[in-house]
């Protein structure tokens, strides 16, 4: 120990000495000789430059300098030298100060030299001119001795001139100035010049002397030499310091050398002691070998000796072991900490004893009981270790296996997601519980262990029951048990119990599987399903009931005697109701299908009416859009089938409806064909082919998904719920079929579906009309598809058919074949062409029967006038085709209209009813919905106005830019461009023109803020839909210069609410025709309302909107009660306007109200008083 600390001391000493060496070395090389050299050279140059400057100044003064470039050169060089010195000089304060002084002095000197240069130049010139002047002026007869003056002036320039002398010269000059008038005029210039130069000499000379003195008084040389000596001092100082450091360095090196020699000596002694110890160990080790597994390792664990036993057990040859590390035998069974602990123990010099598992050469593990004895060297630290071991592999192996098994089982049980517990039977205490068991009851294992499980059961009786069953030797498996967690929560489990012996004692093993969540989910699902079903049935009932009321009443209404207009209104109600119902049906159907509640019927039905009926229903719409709608049902398809005709119709209506919706021109063909016959079954393929917008491939994938249309914008443009196709798909699938679409974008699409239908017991085919079998027909139809439809049908009936695209072909065909009996002529040929064709045909074959294929009602009706024997209206049904042929054959063409079951809705004939007085007002109605168009047009017609129609904002703007209008009614929500955008656009167009067309919004959104939105967009007024005639009239009156005739000319057949000032019918109805009471009531109303109207005016004048609203609210009520619809409407409008705080509108409406009131008074006077009196 003593030796060790001595060595440390020595080492420490060495480190200190080393540190000192580095310190002194680094200090001894601080001087850079090159830098010193440069510094000194620059300092010398500085002094030289200063001297050069002085020399140049003297040369200047003595006029020896050829030019001033010398100064430029010197000052440039000075700058460089000073800059270099700034970088080179050491930064001590003294030197910095000296440097600053040098710089300051030099700057000063240079500045003075600048002055000197200027003055010198002036002086030189002046002296020169004085000499010149004297030669000129010397000859003049003036009393001035210029020669003398010049001499004196030149003398002044010499350094010796005294102040007194200068004064005398100055007075002489003043003298000369006084004599200027005597100088001859031609010499005056020279005289003046002479005087000016003299002045300059006199002055500049002084200044010049002054500058010179200043320049030489600046002690630049002293400053520079001061700086130099300071630098030298500084340099010498550092030189001395460096020398000192070097001496110390030498001394230290010597000391270090000595120290090292001592250390080497000591090391040698230590080495010898070690050798002796090693010898002793060798002898002892040999003794040990004889009865144990013995090995010896050096301090690093390298084996230096292994006896035979060791070689045998490890399986290694001795040569392999020697030099190898003990790590070679490591089995990896012990953690690193085990070896660390072992090494620490033996490294401390203590004996270690323990069991170690090692690995033999062939890989098998063996256990030894090992004692490791460290052998310390003379310094006390171990230098080798002897290990003495006994083989205990066998015993160890058994112990390990046992332990492993137990551990595994315990682990499995512990990690099981199923709760497990063991209860001792003696005292009913829990002796084992796994993690899941604790978690099940929201408790920790420690609180549960040792307790009784009884408290965890909801029903203690159940627990008793189980105990009893177990006692009788039964096991309980998967019983649903209600348990309670420690915090009172109910837990549902599937529990199993088994009796068994646990650690020598009777015990019960319990397994619990938590099913609480499952039970909860099951309960919730059941409730939700029930609620959904209830809601669906309620909704379906609740919505359909009033709808069917509306539709039913509309039907009844249509059956009564109505004039055209009323019929039209009723029809609109019916149509709108129907489309609303269909949307609702869509949604309900979809929900039903989703809920699995939709049932498919299996009844016998006839196919043809279903298909043709669908198409017929939609043909009106198609005709409105100018589309040709056709059906082609393969006549060979069985006439009657079994299936769900209503659902089939639904799918067809949807697909055909879509086709019409998305097609703007061309044809739509509905084709039904058989695509497979089976025993008792027909697979029918339905195709709807259109020439519409088509669908891209990507979109067609999602097409049949719910809530999807071909494009997000489609809903906006075409309306609809987007559910139709997905409903169709579900329905098709429910009927065991499939649906799809083939399309080329922009070239139309074909939607198809295939459904298998069962055959009924009595399968019937359409009877083939025998009478036609011998006949031949000529088809003069331009459309190929249409021709094909005819061709298919007629050929199926056995008729010979020839097709022709136009009149020429037809005439040609007739020439070739004179047996033709019929000619089907399409109205598409045009009426003139048809007339010509008919003439030609008749002339060629007198008895040919012509049948018109009309695609509009008008043409159909006019068929007789054109001499047709019969006529057909598109879409052609098989039955009507047959009828037409029969009719033509019988030459009966009496009441064609009866054939068609189409009752076309006559368009309102507004133009005819327009009063010429109001025709000069051009009104533009912007509205996309045709029903709303009609309503608005009719209302306007009632007020004797006509209007032109734009279907969206864009059309509106086109018309606006083309024509001049007086008023625009603008719908807000429209496809392509909405009303707000259109209005903004119009206002932009008007900008600067000074014109402003009134734009009145018509919106169905009676929502708060809508009015503001309209005004913000630049609209002038606001009208909510449904449009009230009174409000419309008020607006027309307000915005059109001419007065709108208020109601007096309203047709009596129109009983639109508000078109008569007093709804007398209602009053008579209410008061049993008691005219007196009615009159009394109306009189009271008149008086009170007049009062209210005055109050209203006051409130408007004061801008008291709260008051306006309360008055109006009263007026609305009283007017409604007495059937004064117009007043009611206006009051209501006013109430609304007041809520927007729009005072202008309120004022306008007040006028309308007053007018309406006056009118009502008149009406009452005229209609009631007359009766009363």
């Amino acid at each position, binding site marked *: 120990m003593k030796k060790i600390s001595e060595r440390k001391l020595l*080492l420490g000493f*060495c480190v200190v*000495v*080393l540190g000192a*060496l580095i310190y*002194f*070395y680094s200090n*001894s*090389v601080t001087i850079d*000789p090159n830098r*010193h*050299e440069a510094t*000194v*050279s*620059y300092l*010398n*140059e500085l002094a*030289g430059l200063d001297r*050069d400057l002085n020399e140049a100044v003297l040369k200047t003064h003595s006029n020896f300098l*050829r*030019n*001033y*470039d*010398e*100064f*430029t*050169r010197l*000052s440039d060089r000075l*700058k460089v030298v000073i800059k270099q010195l700034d970088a080179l000089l050491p930064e001590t304060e003294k030197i910095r100060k000296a440097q600053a002084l040098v710089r300051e002095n030099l700057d000063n000197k240079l500045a003075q030299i*600048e*002055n000197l*240069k*200027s003055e010198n*130049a*002036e002086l*030189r*010139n*002046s002296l*020169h*001119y004085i000499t010149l002047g004297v030669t000129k002026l010397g000859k003049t007869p003036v009393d001035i001795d210029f020669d003398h003056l010049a001499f004196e002036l030149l003398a002044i320039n010499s350094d010796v001139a005294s102040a007194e002398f200068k004064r005398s010269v100055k007075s002489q000059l003043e003298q000369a100035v006084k004599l200027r008038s005597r100088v001859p005029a031609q010499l005056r*210039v020279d005289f*003046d*010049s002479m005087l*000016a130069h003299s002045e*300059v000499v006199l002055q500049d000379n002084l200044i010049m002397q002054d500058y010179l003195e200043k320049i030489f008084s600046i002690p630049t040389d002293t400053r520079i030499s001061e700086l130099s000596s300071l630098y030298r001092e500084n340099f010498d100082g550092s030189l001395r310091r*460096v*020398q000192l450091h*070097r001496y110390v*360095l*030498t001394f230290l*090196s010597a000391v*270090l*050398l000595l120290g*090292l020699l001592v*250390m*080497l000596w000591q*090391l040698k002694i*230590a*080495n010898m002691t*070690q050798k002796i110890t090693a010898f002793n160990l060798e002898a002892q080790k040999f003794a040990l070998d004889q009865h144990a597994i013995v090995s010896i390792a050096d301090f690093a664990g390298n084996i230096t000796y292994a006896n035979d036993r060791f070689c045998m057990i490890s399986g290694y040859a001795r040569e392999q072991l020697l030099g190898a590390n003990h790590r070679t035998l490591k089995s990896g069974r012990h953690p690193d900490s085990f070896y660390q602990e072992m090494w620490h123990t033996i490294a401390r010099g203590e004996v270690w004893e323990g069991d170690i598992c090692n690995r033999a050469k062939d890989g098998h593990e063996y256990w030894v009981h090992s004692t490791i004895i460290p052998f310390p060297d003379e310094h006390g630290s171990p230098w080798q270790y002897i290990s003495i071991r006994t083989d205990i592999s066998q015993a160890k192996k058994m112990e390990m296996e046992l332990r492993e098994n137990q551990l595994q089982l315990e682990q499995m049980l512990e990690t099981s997601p199923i709760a497990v517990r063991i209860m001792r039977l003696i005292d009913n205490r829990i002796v084992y519980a796994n993690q899941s068991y604790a978690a099940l009851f929201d408790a920790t294992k420690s609180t549960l262990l040792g307790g009784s499980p009884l408290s965890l059961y909801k029903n203690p009786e159940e627990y008793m029951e189980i105990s009893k069953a177990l006692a009788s030797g039964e096991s309980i498996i998967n019983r649903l048990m209600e348990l309670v967690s420690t915090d009172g929560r109910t837990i549902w489990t599937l529990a199993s119990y088994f009796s068994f012996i646990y650690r020598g004692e009777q015990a019960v093993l319990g397994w619990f599987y938590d099913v609480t969540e499952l039970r909860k989910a099951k309960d919730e699902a059941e409730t939700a399903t029930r609620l959904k079903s209830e809601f669906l049935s309620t909704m379906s009932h609740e919505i359909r009931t009033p709808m069917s009321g509306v539709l039913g009443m509309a039907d009844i209404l249509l059956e009564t005697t109505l004039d055209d207009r009323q019929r039209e209104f009723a029809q609109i109600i019916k149509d709108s109701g129907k489309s609303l119902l269909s949307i609702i049906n869509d949604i309900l159907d979809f929900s039903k299908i989703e809920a699995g509640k939709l049932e498919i019927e299996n009844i016998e039905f006839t196919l043809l009416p279903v298909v043709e009926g669908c198409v017929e229903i939609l043909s009106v719409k198609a005709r409105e859009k100018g589309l040709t709608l056709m059906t082609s049902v393969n006549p060979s398809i069985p006439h009657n089938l079994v299936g769900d005709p209503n659902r089939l119709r639904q799918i067809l209506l949807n697909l055909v409806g879509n086709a019409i919706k998305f097609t703007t021109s061309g044809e739509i063909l509905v084709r039904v064909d058989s695509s497979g016959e089976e025993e008792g079954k027909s697979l029918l393929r339905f195709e709807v082919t259109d020439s519409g917008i088509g669908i891209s491939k990507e979109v067609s994938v999602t097409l049949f998904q719910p809530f999807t249309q071909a494009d997000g914008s489609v809903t906006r443009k075409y309306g609809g719920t987007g559910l139709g196709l997905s409903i169709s798909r579900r329905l098709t699938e429910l009927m065991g079929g499939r649906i799809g679409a083939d399309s080329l974008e922009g070239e139309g699409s074909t939607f198809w579906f295939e459904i298998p239908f069962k055959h009924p017991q009595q399968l019937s085919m359409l009877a083939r009309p025998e009478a036609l079998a011998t006949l031949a027909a000529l088809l003069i139809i331009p459309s190929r598809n249409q021709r094909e439809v005819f061709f298919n049908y007629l050929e199926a009936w056995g008729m010979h058919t020839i097709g022709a695209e136009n009149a020429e072909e037809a005439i040609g065909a007739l020439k070739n074949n004179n047996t033709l009996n019929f000619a089907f002529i399409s109205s598409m040929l045009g009426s003139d062409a048809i007339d010509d064709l008919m003439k030609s045909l008749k002339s060629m074959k007198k008895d040919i029967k012509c049948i018109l294929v009309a695609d509009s009602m008008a043409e159909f009706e006019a068929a007789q006038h054109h001499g047709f024997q019969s006529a057909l209206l598109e879409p052609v049904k098989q039955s009507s085709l047959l009828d037409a042929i029969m009719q033509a054959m019988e030459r009966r063409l009496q009441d064609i209209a009866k054939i068609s079951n189409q009752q076309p809705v006559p368009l309102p004939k507004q133009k005819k009813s327009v009063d010429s007085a109001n025709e000069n007002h051009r009104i533009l109605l912007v509205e996309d919905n045709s029903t709303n168009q009609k309503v608005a047009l009719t209302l306007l017609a009632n007020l004797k106005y006509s209007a032109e129609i734009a279907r969206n904002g864009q059309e509106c703007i086109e018309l606006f830019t083309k024509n001049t209008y007086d008023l625009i009614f603008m719908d807000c929500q429209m496809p392509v461009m909405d009303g707000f955008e259109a209005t903004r656009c119009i206002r932009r167009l008007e900008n600067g023109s000074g014109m402003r067309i009134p734009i009145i919004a018509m919106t169905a959104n009676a929502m708060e803020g809508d009015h503001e939105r309209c005004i913000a967009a630049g609209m002038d007024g606001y009208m909510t839909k449904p449009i009230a005639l009174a409000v419309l009239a008020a607006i027309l009156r307000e915005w059109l210069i001419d007065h709108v005739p208020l109601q007096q000319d309203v047709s009596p057949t129109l009983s639109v609410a508000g078109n008569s000032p007093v709804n007398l019918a209602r009053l008579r109805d209410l008061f049993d025709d008691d005219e007196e009471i009615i009159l009394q009531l109306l009189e009271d109303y008149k008086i009170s309302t007049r009062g209210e109207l005055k109050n209203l005016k006051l409130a408007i004048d004061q801008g008291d909107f709260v008051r306006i609203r309360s008055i109006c609210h009263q007026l609305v009520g009283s007017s409604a009660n007495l059937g004064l619809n117009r007043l009611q409407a206006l009051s209501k409008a006013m109430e609304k306007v007041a809520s927007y705080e729009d005072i202008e509108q309120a004022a306008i409406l007040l006028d309308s109200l007053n007018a309406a009131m006056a009118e009502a008074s008149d009406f009452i006077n005229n209609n009631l008083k007359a009766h009363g009196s």
Partner: protein
Amino acid sequence: MTLKKNIIIAAATLLIATGLGALYYGMEKPEYVYYQPDPINSEDVPEKFRNEPIQPVPMGVKVNLTVAALGKKLFHDPRLSADDSISCANCHNLGTAGVDGRRYSIGINGIQEYLNTPTIFNSGLNPYQFWDGRAASLEQMINEPPSNIHKMESNWNDVIQKLKRDSTSRHDFAAAFEDGLTSNNIAHAIAEFERTLATPNARFDQFLRGKDDAITPQEKQGYHLFKSYGCATCHQGVAVGGNMFERMGSVRRYFDDYPPRGSEDLGRYNVTHDEKHRYYFRVPSLRNVEKTAPYFHNGSAKTLEEAVKVMGFYNLGVRMPESDVALIVQFLKTLTGEYEGRQL
């Protein structure tokens, strides 16, 4: 055991070696050399002309060509002005003898200063720049105009930001300078370029270098007059002026007849605020003077003749006869030198 021993021995050896090395080094004694100034380079001027007040412009200048090339780009780069409208070359048009030919120079937004633009040619020969000499070097001069409200109204930060956005500029600066794009380097580059703008080989220089027929007898006579009138007292040296200050009207009061228009007319006073320096201006170099009309700090003299006459009257106190003026002007025209091998 042996490892520790080895380490110690190695360390010791190293230490001893270092110590001995230090000892040896410490004993070395360097010698120091003292500075001897260079003899003045008198170029190739014959002995007889060595004492003439005017000396020829050196035929070449030593510059760093990379830096000067960058400087040339910057000299013509309008990004140095606030609104990217004006470069150095705008006023110092190298095509028109380094001046703009206007009476007063015009900065951005057309702002005028009551000073005539001095030529940039041979500015490297001048010890100070500007009419009032406020810049002691070309670098200092360049530091001013970008921020000068009358000229470019910019500042270095803006200029550096603008140049940094340009990868070519970044690359050029990286190639020319270790520290890349800095305000000092911009100034240094432009200055280095401007140093190349010397105009050697004027006819008069050829004459001074010994080619006797380089100038006509009249021009020689003009030179004689130039010296004898005292013009050469101030307009001397290589640049024929430019290396000193002199009062405008040192003999007769110039500003009584040409009233000052602004503080610019105070001249050097604006720099030193020394009453003595009122109306002092840098004596302009007369190199290429033929091409740099109008003349004087205020650009008041439209022709050389007028300039010579005004100078003679106010600064020499004489009315020169027209014939002398003509001869002096003829001489002055021999001072026009060459740039890039072509006469200005």
